[in-house]
């Protein structure tokens, strides 16, 4: 595996490998000294063309925990502001010889384009409405820690599926790990032909009691102006997940940031059923695992960038 571009190109075995690796990094994260020397001397660039808190900070910290040097570029305040093209920016950064470039970009396929321009491993941290594979992997890791295997489990993805890269990645990721996926939301926010991906489609929360996991998507305010839903109030009345709509055995997830009182009620966020803070914690170790697999794996094809002591996860730096 050279790059991480989409969940589509990962098989179940590769997913398991990353989750196993993340579990071992979780052990490191509980130590007093949380750093390992694995990527010492290597450079990781994070290049964010869209705002992000969770993803950018966790990738940056993950790289630092692995002892890599990190350059973090945000579109605002960089030469991107001056109209530099993606290709020119990326080729400029390539001059530093990075081992990996983590990119978030508002347009689908951007991460894949980078693979044609650079030798570095490319990690897609979100491309338009297309894919967000590291989110899916951290969601799978979170679920593994809380309920074990998701084989045969029912997962409902609720909300603005149309504009969601998380939904597209997660449908694929959940299905690859054996779960049955249902998407629910108003017809204006469910993309045409989504059934062909093998998931069920609902336009209400009726029947949600069968779900083991309810995965909520952020309802973006700007969608109101485009008339995708008539009002936040009506959306909340029809699709907000509150404790009233959940049975105690059901788990709730959300990729963040949440809109309290819109797609999710505050009482659910703060309840034991919510895995939202576990998801954030998983983000760090899963991203460490992704960097590890791409930059030290036997298939990465970069012998010169392999660390001196290959594994040594247990050894603090």
């Amino acid at each position, binding site marked *: 595996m050279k790059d991480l571009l989409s969940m589509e190109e990962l098989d179940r075995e590769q997913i398991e490998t990353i989750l196993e690796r993340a579990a071992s990094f979780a052990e490191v994260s509980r130590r007093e000294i949380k750093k390992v020397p694995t990527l010492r001397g290597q450079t990781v660039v994070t290049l964010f063309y869209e705002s992000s808190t969770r993803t950018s900070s966790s990738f940056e910290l993950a790289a630092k925990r692995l002892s890599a040097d990190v350059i973090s570029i945000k579109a605002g305040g960089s030469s991107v502001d001056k109209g530099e093209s993606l290709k020119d920016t990326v080729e400029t950064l390539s001059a530093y010889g990075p081992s990996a470039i983590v990119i978030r970009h508002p347009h*689908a*396929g951007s991460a894949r384009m980078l693979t044609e321009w650079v030798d570095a491993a490319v990690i897609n941290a979100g491309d338009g409405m297309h894919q967000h594979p590291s989110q899916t992997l951290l969601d799978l890791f979170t679920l593994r820690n809380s309920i074990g295997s998701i084989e045969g489990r029912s997962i409902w993805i609720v909300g603005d599926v149309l504009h969601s890269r998380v939904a597209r990645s997660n449908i694929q990721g959940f299905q690859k790990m054996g779960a049955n996926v249902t998407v629910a939301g108003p017809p204006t926010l469910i993309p045409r032909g989504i059934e062909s991906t093998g998931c069920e489609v609902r336009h209400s929360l009726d029947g949600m009691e069968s779900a083991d996991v309810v995965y909520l998507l952020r309802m973006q305010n700007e969608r109101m102006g485009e008339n995708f839903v008539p009002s936040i109030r009506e959306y909340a009345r029809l699709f907000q997940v509150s404790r009233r709509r959940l049975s105690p055995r059901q788990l709730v997830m959300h990729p963040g940031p949440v809109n309290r009182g819109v797609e999710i009620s505050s009482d659910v966020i703060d309840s034991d059923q919510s895995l939202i803070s576990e998801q954030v914690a998983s983000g760090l170790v899963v991203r460490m695992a992704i960097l590890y697999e791409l930059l030290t794996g036997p298939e990465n094809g970069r012998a010169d960038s392999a660390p001196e002591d290959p594994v040594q996860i247990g050894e603090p730096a």
Partner: protein
Amino acid sequence: MNTGPETVEQPLPEPLVQRAGRPASMIIARAGVLDPVTGLDGSRDLMIEDGRITGIAAAGSLAATEGVEIVDGAGKYVFPAFFDPHVHLRTPGQEYKEDLETGTRAAAAGGYGGVLAMANTSPPVSSPADIDALRHRARNEASVPIGFLATVTRNMEGRELTDMAELREAGAVGFTDDGVPVSNPGILRKALQYQAMCGGRIALHEEDPDLTAGGAMHEGDVSTELGLRGVPSITESVMIARDAAIAGYEGGAIQIQHLSAVESVEAVRRARADGVDITCEVTPHHLCLTDEAVRDLNASRHKMNPPLRSEDDRQALIEALLDGTIDCIATDHAPHAVEEKEVPYEAAMMGVTGLETAFSSLYTELVLPGTIPLSLLVEKLGCGGAAFGIDPFRIEEGRTANLCLVDLEADWTVGEQGYESRSRNSWCEGRTLTGKVLMTLAGGQVAYRLRSFSLGVA
């Protein structure tokens, strides 16, 4: 219903303009000659003197004349030169993408003997002076005759009509705001009323901006999977239905550009059944590709407007070509610079080049598998001027030589030898195609000759 637009009394300028050059004289010997218009189909010798076809004789019967080139056509085909009613030559204003010289070189390399240039240049072709200037340039630069369309509305802003009558007098062969639709039905209605006086078919890029809503590819399973905003098929068909109703009411003549979807084909059929003077085009890429191709997110090859649609749509277009619903094949040749295409798919400019590959791509994809006959392909590539009053070229004694010599056995890889066009955003880039144009005579002049194709001189 009216009988259609009447033209103004005074004679209009010649619709097509070309660079003056040396008229060709040659004998093309023992070529298979296929002319769907005259019905000629067989092995012949062609005598061309001073740019005119002066003899069509049995193969091997024409004797060599001192100093006259003999082109060995054995095993090759001669067709009437093609005519493309829809190309973007980017002049004036965007010569970094294409100009009249490179654009007509590309046309000649594709076997074309004439093209019609769209008016969405920078600035758009909206005044008689713009038409004058372009025709003047074409007299110096165009190896293939060009006809120019003017915009329907001033600067394509959709608010005021251009001086349509004066534009016609200056030489505009028709009118189009191609690139954008004429959104305001009241403006289109007035343009069609005015057309009754000044003539000039109005070519329409059909799309409802509110239904397209920023879409980047066909709305369907692939757009859902890729997370790209979709362009629904109905954005085209609702506008065709609207504009056909207006044209029917006013007795106007409209050409629907680059038909892409099954609903659009049905809308054209209904309009024609109602007696509307409606003609339509289809592009080679819509006949050969579907939205599955967009999975590679290669904007240079696969991003254009209208977008590549589903296999059902493609099949409907082929059927409509076969049953005559679609009048002609037009490339919508739309050159763009590398930096405008080498960006993420959603951010890339829309359009692909097509002049150099139209015949070869369709011969490879549709004729060789037996989907359509060769004669139909030659006919549909040749008749694109008819809607604008320009008759298809013919291989007939006394006619100006407008023909192409084609090797139907030759395989070639697109882009390997570069392009005649200034741009390289060909939807065929890297494909191996069968059938290669060896030589094109346009307006009686040699407009193109494949460099490696040697010509014997007696």
